[in-house]
């Protein structure tokens, strides 16, 4: 490298500290992002997944287009608004890899157009969320694990690959108030149907048969002997944030229907997989999530047969077939906002670089304004069999 260049780089290097990683539910907030000339040059403290999230955030970018033809963002927003204002039973879905204010706007839009709104929790954690609604849960924030837990059981999860810094920050080698020796103060057990890289961190591995967790759990009654806490290893991006804001605004964590002007909840009916499998929805807006790429074929099929809008920084299975594609700045990198950790702790995501594209929030705001002038959602009809105070 020529000397002159090095000097120039050094002069314009900006180090942004305390950056929150938008990739997974561990939501590390200690990243250092090195920015030179508005471009990310390096990321310190992140795991490989987090680092790649930042380093490659410009790769595979989507372009604005309508029915496959290049268009301006303005035209795309107009086209999207037209589709949504006309729809009788639309779906808004995705919303994990974005920030709280964009999620807020998506809910407001769903209310306005009388849509179904759901997010990736639905297809990943629906049964566990419903289990909580049935019997509850005894859980804790990850700091409790770090400070106090002397027995860790990783059950059917693989943090070594899915949540790489969970072990070092919170659960295995982390040193806390009552666990000053880190790993030495803990017993780590891994229960799974197969050995994984997580198994190598564990003191013991228990292999169970696939689909037998229910039977094993039934036979174990953990809290009879000591105090156990249980925490779902929530996965992608800010999926917890979406569940949080949806819950405080509508009362329900996922699978919400607004077609009658107020929120209703019913997994199996208003959940994305069922809406698509039953071929009920007549238009869809997918925000910051790849529906086509991740759904069983039968569901993807229906999505492709209706007007489909994709708002996403990157090309995906969904953008490839979408009627309208609106690229956006990636939340947590090129757009600021808030994200939730897997234990429901909120953290601020910083904007570290600029993007030529608007943020998810801005796009949704503009669609909202457009649709708002076109129609009012919800018919205000009374609820089926809504009952008085019981």
């Amino acid at each position, binding site marked *: 490298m020529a000397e002159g260049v090095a000097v120039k780089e050094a002069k314009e290097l900006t180090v942004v500290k305390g950056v929150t990683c938008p990739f997974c539910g561990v939501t590390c907030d200690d990243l250092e992002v090195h920015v030179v000339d508005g471009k990310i040059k390096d990321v310190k403290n992140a795991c490989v997944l987090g680092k790649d999230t930042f380093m490659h955030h410009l790769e595979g970018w989507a372009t604005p287009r309508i029915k496959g033809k290049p268009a301006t963002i303005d035209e795309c927003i107009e086209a999207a608004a037209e589709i949504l204002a006309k729809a009788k039973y639309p779906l808004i879905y995705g919303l994990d890899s974005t920030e709280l204010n964009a999620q807020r706007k998506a809910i407001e839009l769903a209310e306005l157009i009388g849509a179904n709104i759901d997010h990736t929790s639905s297809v990943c954690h629906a049964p566990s969320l419903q289990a909580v609604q049935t*019997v509850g849960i005894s859980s804790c924030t990850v700091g409790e694990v770090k400070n106090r837990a002397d027995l860790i059981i990783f059950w059917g999860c693989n943090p070594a690959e899915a949540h790489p810094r969970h072990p070092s920050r919170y659960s295995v080698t982390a040193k806390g108030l009552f666990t000053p020796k880190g790993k030495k103060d803990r017993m780590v057990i891994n229960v799974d149907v197969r050995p994984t890289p997580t198994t190598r961190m564990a003191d013991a591995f228990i292999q169970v048969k696939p689909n037998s967790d229910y039977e094993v759990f039934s036979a174990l009654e953990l809290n009879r002997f000591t105090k156990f806490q249980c925490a779902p290893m929530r996965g992608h991006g800010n999926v917890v944030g979406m569940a949080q804001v949806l819950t405080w605004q509508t009362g329900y964590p996922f699978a919400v229907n607004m077609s009658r002007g107020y929120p209703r909840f019913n997994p199996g009916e208003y959940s994305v997989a069922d809406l698509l499998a039953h071929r009920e929805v007549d238009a869809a807006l997918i925000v910051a999530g790849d529906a086509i790429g991740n759904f069983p074929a039968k569901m993807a099929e229906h999505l492709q047969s209706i007007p489909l809008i994709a708002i996403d920084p990157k090309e995906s299975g969904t953008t490839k077939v979408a009627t309208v594609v609106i690229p956006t700045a990636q939340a947590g990198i090129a757009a600021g906002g808030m994200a939730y950790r897997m234990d429901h702790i909120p953290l601020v995501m910083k904007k570290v670089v600029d993007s030529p594209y608007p943020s998810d929030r801005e796009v949704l705001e503009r669609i909202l304004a457009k649709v708002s002038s076109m129609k009012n*959602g919800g018919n205000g009809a009374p609820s089926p069999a809504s009952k008085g105070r019981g």
Partner: protein
Amino acid sequence: MGSSLKIVGGEVYDPANGINGAVKEIYVQDGKIVEACREPSGVIDATNLVVMPGGVDIHTHIASSAVNAARGFRPEDHRHGLIAKKPGIRSGVGFTVPSTFATGYLYTKMGYTTVMEAANAPIGVRHTHEELIDTPILDKGLYILMGNNEFILKYLKAGEMEKVKRYVAWLIRSLKGYGIKLVNPGGVEQWKYGKDVEGLDDKVYYFDVTPRQILKALAWTNESLGLPHPIHLHANRLGIPNNYLTTLETMHALEGFRLHMAHIQFHSYGGENWGGFCSKAAEVAEYINTHPHITTDIGQVVFGDATTITADGPWQYRLYKLSKNKWYNQDVEVETGCGIVPYVYREKNYVNAIQWAIGLELFLLIQDPWRVSLSTDHPNGGAFIFYPWVIKLLMDKEFRSEMLKRVHKRVLSDTTLPNLDREYTLSEIAIITRAGPARALGLTRKGHLGVGADADITIYLKDSDREQMFEHPIYVLKDGVVVLREGELVGSRDGKLLFVVPPDVGEMDPEFKTEFENFYTIEYENFPIDAEDIPNREAIPAGASR
């Protein structure tokens, strides 16, 4: 702005200014009450109507990580009280844990304009602010949980009171809080090992400090920072038979300090066990009557569905075992815990009926209404939407007698309620629902209609059925703007966050950052909340240190 209006012909109840039903004009300009204004742009004819300041709730659980967990885990609760969207009005759901928009509207529809969210884990306060931003119309403040904070326990163990003071000031300043909340001091820390504290002098594991020490330290800190509200205390042993002894001991231990005893109904129980469960309201009321430094809210039980939400983890575990209902528990690093259990209070269940009676006994036996606030400890004793029902019970002895015939007969033998003839006056209701709580909170512009007050005004139709009257105000004005007319919401607007700016008592020690990052799981710099993140806010300065 420049908007102005006058309210004419109304019977005004403004106890803070000594006005007790006089017909009086009220002038509003730019959101404040003024002496008079020339050519007001609007006139409200309140002839034959009752005018009061907007209601102030000193203790409610409407927004926090815990409340949201309760919402999410109780979908069955939300099939009641649906609110459909209308232009300018967002949709929502009830009932014991309503959604945020619904919360704002439901309080407004009941004539309340200021509420205090009563329990927030520091690390979750950022979340609470986001919920409060989405809670329309109302002005809001929040108390921060400190009674089991491991930093405070650590400083106490080392006898470093100045550090406690600096830390508390730092917490309130960083998080934009309103006051200090304690929940089962020491007990929630014990719960992290599945235990509880049995009394004020039990030692907390590892930290070797007692609830008594925690109570005194935070009461002292509160005074030395000159915070507008006393420490807000959910005492030890909530909900347990014979806990009135702990309650009396706690109040005694804090003599000389200002003290707010939260939901005192849940702390006034006698009997050696559940079989012998009985009221000790008279004993507790007597103590409060003779100790003017104490204010309280009742935590009245309302029959029907409730959701119990509290940082008191060990109590919630007991309630889960008693009720066999679903149970949510979340222990929060460094700070506190949280438990949620749905519960149904039944008229014919003797414990529930006695709890109901104890609340009313306390209302009727505590003589000074200025030191009693109406609360159901929403949603622990029941939903806030039943305040008007409670008001009717307080104002109408006959209605109480009817209820006494319906509830479990042990109320007749195990409480003093059947013998209490007191009926609250309208002025006294105005005190316990607005003037009193505002004064206890140190909110000088709330709870009254004097010049300079915020123009938060509720106008009721006089009705001998007091429940009807207070359930359906005719007008509600928030910051001088009519938000409810003829019982209908006519528009929404954003309310403010009210937060206290504590005095400068020095920076945190340099090693605090390291300790913080050792105990917590987030960066020290990422913990404080930028005031800019809260769009509508009003700083309330702390008073002189006492």
